[in-house]
């Protein structure tokens, strides 16, 4: 799911994501064209318009399909992208009905297409490019470096990027998982992806209350050779109240911070209490690792 230079990108719902696509083009991303399933939308930004992903892939491989279309249109767009042969799919749109997500993920799984989101801000590799909806022009926030940032929350992820860029560690890749209660790329899978990414030496995970992404990532973190720091926001939130983020809800006694931290503790993850300490914790872990091999692994 990591963007590489030269990846070809196709866009669904260009009119809804025009500003983001413009920024992508400015940053040198190869946006090949727009797919419009049910409209006679004229070309924007000088991009060619296709009527299906099949038309797009007939002219060359599509490495990333990105969906900005409104929630009711996301399922059709995603199925077109998956069946049309796109390799990866990023769904930026938030508030996609969960049954639609189950449907499109089942199709994606069959066609071996990786899906990021829904509600994902996308993927960014500093100095290389990005796909999605990120403020990639803020170079002070995305300095090339060694830490992969995987975040469930956009605002926390951006804050972590700023802290790590400011500290000198820098960012190797940023992945925003999205805010839907049902997600394509899981935290666990994202961590694995980052580990195999060449520039990455350490991973920072930004979790929030609700769901079970953090708990499910514990087994993966146990297997990791590189340091994985985890910060989880949202202590003591009232039960049954959805707090901003769609997936952030504690119910039936599940999704609370204590449970997440307890699941992560035995995995060897570096639990971060205060976000401001994140760079220092990773720096320390990296320097102790370079002095000698870790006991585990």
């Amino acid at each position, binding site marked *: 799911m990591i963007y590489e230079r030269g990846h070809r990108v196709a866009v669904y719902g260009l009119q809804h994501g025009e500003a983001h696509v413009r920024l992508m083009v400015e940053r040198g991303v190869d946006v090949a064209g727009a797919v419009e399933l049910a409209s006679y939308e004229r070309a924007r930004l000088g991009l060619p318009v296709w009527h299906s992903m099949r038309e797009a892939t007939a002219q060359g491989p599509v490495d990333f399909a990105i969906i900005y279309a409104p*929630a*009711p249109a996301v399922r059709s767009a995603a199925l077109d992208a998956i069946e049309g042969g796109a390799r990866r799919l990023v769904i930026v749109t938030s*508030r*996609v*009905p*969960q*049954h639609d*997500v*189950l*449907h499109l*993920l*089942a*199709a994606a*799984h069959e066609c071996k297409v990786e899906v990021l989101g829904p509600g994902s801000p996308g993927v960014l590799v500093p100095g290389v490019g990005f796909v999605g*909806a990120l*403020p990639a022009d*803020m170079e002070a*926030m995305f300095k090339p470096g060694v830490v992969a940032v995987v*975040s*469930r*929350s*956009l*605002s*926390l*992820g*951006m*804050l972590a990027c*700023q802290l790590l860029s400011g500290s000198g560690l820098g960012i190797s890749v940023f992945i925003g998982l999205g805010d*839907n*209660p*049902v*997600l*394509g790329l*899981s935290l666990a899978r994202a961590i694995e992806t980052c580990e195999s990414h060449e520039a990455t030496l350490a991973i920072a995970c930004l979790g*929030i*209350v609700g*769901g*079970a992404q953090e708990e*499910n990532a514990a087994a993966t973190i146990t297997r990791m050779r590189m340091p994985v720091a985890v*910060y989880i*926001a*949202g*202590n*003591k*939130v*009232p039960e*049954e*109240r*959805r*707090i*901003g*983020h*769609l997936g*952030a809800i504690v*119910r*039936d006694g599940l999704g609370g911070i204590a449970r997440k931290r307890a699941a992560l503790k035995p995995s060897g993850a570096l639990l971060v*209490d*205060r*976000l*401001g300490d994140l760079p220092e914790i990773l720096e320390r872990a990296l320097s102790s690792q370079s002095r000698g091999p870790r006991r585990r692994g």
Partner: protein
Amino acid sequence: MNFEEPAIKQRLKELGILVPEGEVATHPLEAVRIARRLGRSVVKAQFAGIRRRTFEGIGFAPDAETAGRHAARLCGLETPHGRVERLLVEKWVESKRELYLAIATCPTRQTAMLMFCAAGGRALEGALREDGAAMLRIPIDIRMPFDRLPVLRGLARTKGVAGLDLEAIADTLHRLYQAYFENDCELIEIDPLGVTAEGDLVALNCRMRVDPAAAFRKPGLTLKAVPQSRTPLERRAHQLGLDFIELGGSIGLMANGSGLALATMDMIRQQGGEPANFLDIGFDGRSDPRSALDLVKAQANVRSIVCNLFGTVTGADRMVQGLAAAMAGDRMRPLVAIVQGRGEVAAAHSLRGQPGIHVCDTIEAGVERAIALAGSEATPL
């Protein structure tokens, strides 16, 4: 979106699942009238969406008089789940066994999951504690029509099913799945499903949670949902499209982005303060900061305010426009603005020196300042 039992049972009944006859009462006298008609009855307090443990809020009544007594006890009762406003008075169905049935969205497996346990109601937790495998789980591909065969095979393998009519249970699960599918559910659960002496399967208690993101295609259903219980201030915020929860501490809080707001809330607690509220003005900070600030200030317990703005797509300098004006005339409750990211210099410049506003550039420093201000400068209102 959560629903009360009568609304769910109506849906189940339409799909051919048996439910006890019953009616809603809001007053003990009404309960007596209904119980007189039904004979032996059960009086149940209605809490939408809550998993009922044991017999919490339930009264069994052999006659109408007892039903009235239960109703009088339950009506208006304050419980951890809120005040009891409505009662469901139902015919008392004698069951010889109780089962657990549910269809739920499983985010981990990214699929709809059918669940069945041969022990339901009070016996469920004990059965699962004894043997986690007592719960049958079958993933269902939401793109396909319901397939009975794997369900029947699964049921036959499940612990404790001897003596049960598996065909009938598979049939009920099929109908339950239909309800899950047609109503865009996150969860639909019958707990317990009673097996009567005659072998009928009756849904005694049930829960249903519908995906709020699907509300746009289920307008009729949305109308029947039980609204989230909100304080008057929370209702006002909801109308403004803001995520706002009152918490009762003394440090008011607003931030752009839910993760940022949660992290700020945690920081307040870590430094020994208590947040008065949670307020997310949206990551892009497009909503008017003044109306957000008004909400925070409207809480009487607030003694200082932390405003955490992180400029990315929208610059912090644009988000703070209007903050100074909104603070003018309120020097009792100082505001600590934490501005970072895009436009931070311009934002700090425009706020610095304004009466009642302090500017900080890290969350740690800002929160510390706000807690100190809440303790010293402010006087109780």
